[in-house]
């Protein structure tokens, strides 16, 4: 028998207030934890209190606080996050991966008011090497710029208002023309025309139009958007939800950031049309926590759209009501996986769910939900405005429409461009990327994203689309990191595995231990301490992760592993000794 008297204590006033401010339910957990973290007040006591205020078990709040990389239980000053994604790594070209070196360099250069941390790819690959100064994006900047950066200098953003030669601009057509912070400017440039047109016809017509356009999802898998919406629309249960996946956390990918930054209303318009077609009532834009600037721009755009009755109750007198919310992540690549994203949105650890059921049947809050990528939504207004036939007529290639491409690495003009499908890697490098930089020779490219294929020059002339991965070159989310002969494929693969090992959620054994062990092997191979049998073990681990992992993260880690081991077997063998 305990002799301790159990006394009921009400929840700490400040935390109760905070919880109430963010909605008071489990879905507010991440926001509450972030606010506590910003005040350096994240510790077991406050986390337990926050959990009480939100009516969830303490372990759930603690599990989240230790899951998301932007949260920390350690006391921090102002935080400066240094990107150690593969593109920034290439720019820094340090022998050991440079993770600790570059953090130390920054630490020594900034004054004592800053805490410097490493971060997985910040999505600023066109501004590499990049850092995140509190919540402000900066790049290209190096440790020698530290003083300026602390004083407010943020480097020079890449300019996209002028199209490259050969570009076909649809989603990017208004970059530099439209003022992203003014809805009047958006309306002048014909934004929301697609929505107005859609609202004049019935949802089934809108759905049929999107279906017949053949629009494929732009997140990487290429699932037909119209078919997904049809699944949601045909569910009898309401409410139905739309979720926009703007958790662009994969190294090499930054197209969604540019789309949201340059033309937020285009995205909102696409989401509202999706809502109308699916019979949904609300939407959430799940944006990665590192994109604070873009999140604020979206919130401003939402407010303006509401003021113009393009959002909210009875939109333009059509009887259709719809709302969009912005939800910020807090640093977790896995939340780009749609079911992990939904878990995160519900205020849980971002761990993937069992499938089936798939989100169109049981998604956010267990309701029918359409989850699509930013770029997919951005294409929709144009399809509605100009018609599915026009979308199909943009190119002669078998996959209709345009795609955002990113070309990075050792090319003369790295950056973002829009073009039809079916480009070859050679075209991407020579026609759009301005060719290899002077004095360098192509060695390999990482195609798609971090979980894409690594190809050598044999695959330079294969037209790339969602199906070309069968031929060994993937489109993924459309990014291409081009490396010249100075780059060791062993060290490069180590960078990728470092990313996956850091970002694995830990739920299933093959991915949790497999990524970690692969990194261990690659660390020693890249530093000249490889051992006999290393290549074989990497191959075995890759097969295991592919076959047995729980979700797409673990299943796709082997894609770069296997492809680079195939194309550069000799170099890996050499690194064994």
């Amino acid at each position, binding site marked *: 028998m305990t002799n301790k008297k159990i006394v009921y204590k009400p929840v700490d006033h400040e935390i109760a207030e905070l919880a109430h401010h963010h909605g008071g339910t489990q879905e507010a957990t991440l926001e509450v934890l972030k606010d506590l973290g910003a005040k350096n007040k994240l510790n077991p006591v406050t986390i337990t209190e926050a959990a009480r205020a939100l009516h969830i*078990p*303490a372990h759930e709040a*603690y599990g989240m606080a230790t899951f998301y990389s932007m949260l920390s239980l350690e006391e921090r000053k102002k935080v400066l996050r240094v990107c150690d994604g593969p593109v920034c790594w290439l720019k820094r070209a340090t022998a050991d991966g440079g993770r600790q070196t570059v953090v130390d360099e920054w630490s020594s250069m900034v004054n004592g008011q800053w805490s410097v941390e490493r971060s997985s790819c910040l999505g600023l690959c066109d501004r590499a090497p990049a850092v995140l100064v509190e919540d402000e994006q900066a790049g290209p900047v190096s440790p020698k710029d530290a003083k300026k950066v602390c004083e407010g200098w943020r480097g020079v953003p890449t300019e996209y208002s002028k199209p490259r030669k050969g570009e076909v601009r649809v989603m990017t057509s208004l970059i530099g023309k439209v003022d992203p912070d003014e809805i009047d400017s958006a309306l002048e440039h014909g934004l929301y025309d697609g929505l107005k047109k859609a609202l004049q016809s019935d949802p089934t017509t809108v759905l049929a139009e999107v279906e017949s356009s053949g629009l494929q999802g732009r997140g990487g898998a290429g699932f037909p958007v119209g078919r997904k919406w049809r699944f949601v629309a045909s569910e009898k249960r309401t409410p139905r939800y739309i979720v926009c996946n703007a958790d662009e956390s994969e190294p090499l990918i930054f197209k969604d950031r540019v789309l949201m930054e340059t033309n937020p209303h285009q995205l909102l318009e696409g989401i509202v049309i999706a809502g109308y077609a699916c019979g949904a009532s609300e939407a959430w834009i799940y944006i990665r926590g590192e994109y604070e600037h873009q999140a604020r721009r979206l919130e401003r755009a939402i407010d303006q759209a509401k003021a113009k009755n393009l959002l909210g109750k009875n939109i333009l007198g059509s009887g259709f009501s719809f709302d969009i919310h912005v939800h910020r992540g807090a640093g977790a690549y896995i939340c780009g996986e749609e079911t992990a994203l939904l878990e995160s949105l519900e205020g849980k650890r971002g761990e993937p769910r069992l499938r089936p059921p798939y989100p169109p049947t049981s998604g956010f809050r267990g309701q029918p939900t359409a989850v699509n990528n930013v770029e997919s939504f951005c294409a929709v207004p144009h399809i509605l405005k100009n018609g599915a036939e026009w979308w199909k007529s943009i190119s002669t290639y078998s996959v209709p429409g345009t795609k955002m491409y990113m070309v990075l690495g050792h090319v003369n003009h790295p950056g973002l461009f829009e073009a039809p499908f079916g480009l070859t890697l050679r075209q991407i490098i020579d026609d759009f990327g301005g060719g290899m930089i002077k004095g360098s020779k192509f060695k390999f490219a990482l195609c798609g994203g971090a979980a894409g294929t690594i190809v050598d020059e044999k695959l330079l002339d294969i037209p790339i689309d969602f199906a070309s991965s069968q031929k060994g070159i993937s489109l993924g989310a459309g990014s291409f990191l081009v490396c010249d002969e100075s780059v060791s494929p062993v060290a490069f693969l180590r960078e990728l595995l470092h990313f996956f090992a850091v970002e694995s959620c830990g*739920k299933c054994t*093959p991915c949790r231990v497999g990524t970690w*062990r692969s990194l261990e092997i690659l660390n020693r191979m890249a530093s000249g301490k490889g051992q006999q049998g290393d290549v074989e073990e990497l191959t075995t681990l890759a097969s295991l992760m592919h076959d047995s992992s729980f979700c797409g993260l673990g299943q796709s880690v082997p894609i770069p592993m296997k492809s680079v081991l195939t194309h550069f077997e000799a170099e890996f063998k050499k690194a064994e000794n």
Partner: protein
Amino acid sequence: MINLKINGQPIQAEPGKTILQVTKEHGIHVPTLCYHKDLNPTGNCRMCVVEVKGGRFLSAACVTPIWEGMEIQTQSEKVTKDRKLTLELMLANHPQDCITCDVSGECELQDLAYEYKAAAPAWGSKGTRYPVDSDPNPFIRVDMNRCILCRRCVSACAEIQVRDVWGVAKRGFDEVIVPGAGTTMLEARCESCGQCVAYCPTGALSNKMNYGKARAHQMTKVTTTCSYCGVGCQFDLLVKNEKVIGVQSNPNAPVNGMALCVKGRYGYDYIHHPERLKKPKVRRYLLEGKKKPRDDGQWTMDNGQSSTVNGLWDWVETEWDVALEITAKKFAQIRNDFGADSMGFLTSAKCTNEENYLMNKLARQVVGTNNIDHCARL
């Protein structure tokens, strides 16, 4: 009914079932680790992967629903190889201390390693990552080094005991099971029921009271019914050298399954307590039919003098019949002298429903009073 093929054998099964349910029904062995029939399947550990024809990946049998025309291989080379590798990855991150481990012999990880001839890889044994015996809970011994992150403890605590003590913290290779917000178990609302221990497939969670006392093959199990209350939970007493050294859940217990409360699971030390009453005891003066001594232990003799009488006040072991006889006579005497309502009966939650009913009969019909109450009403 759904038609499917498992290892080439045509099978009919009800729709809505998982592959694992069907294989179990048909006696086809599929190894599991994070799966437990009492808990919601999570598909974490990937031990139960099987090959489904047409699938790009292997499927976890515990969470994959069956469909018409499904063709499943449960023992193909690919499947067996992957299971073995997954086990090796778990073992690499698990201390190689089976030789001194308490649960050796009833450890599911050990059994699977044996089945698949999986040993810890040479690169394993990364040293002790967590403090051994890390929690001050008086009953539950925590050694997270042995944890393979199957999360059965988390599910058991949430789904069976509904206390939500255990949770998952951090991510990737650093992932670890913690109580509450990284506190101690008791601070995280633990009521020490030990459900987490019962469901832990390894030695990560074990019992403090019998730690190091015996291994599975050195004990005999005696199924018994808990004597603490009327629920009628069953469990196995663990017996070594004629001594009860512990309590273990018996999954076949009809009333409670694996569930037990802190008293049933850990309140067994009274069994071999030197002061435990095993037979009725009666004061010597009653047994010998003498007069009652005074409270000060003295006895007033017939001549009015006080005298110390050795032993008349002592408790003496006797037979049930004798003790009951004396009690009955005393009851009768009290009733005759002071009336039935001078007596009251208080029964106990440790008695069964039937015993409580009989007590009620004794009070009302034999003695003739309505003065009866029960501890559970207080």
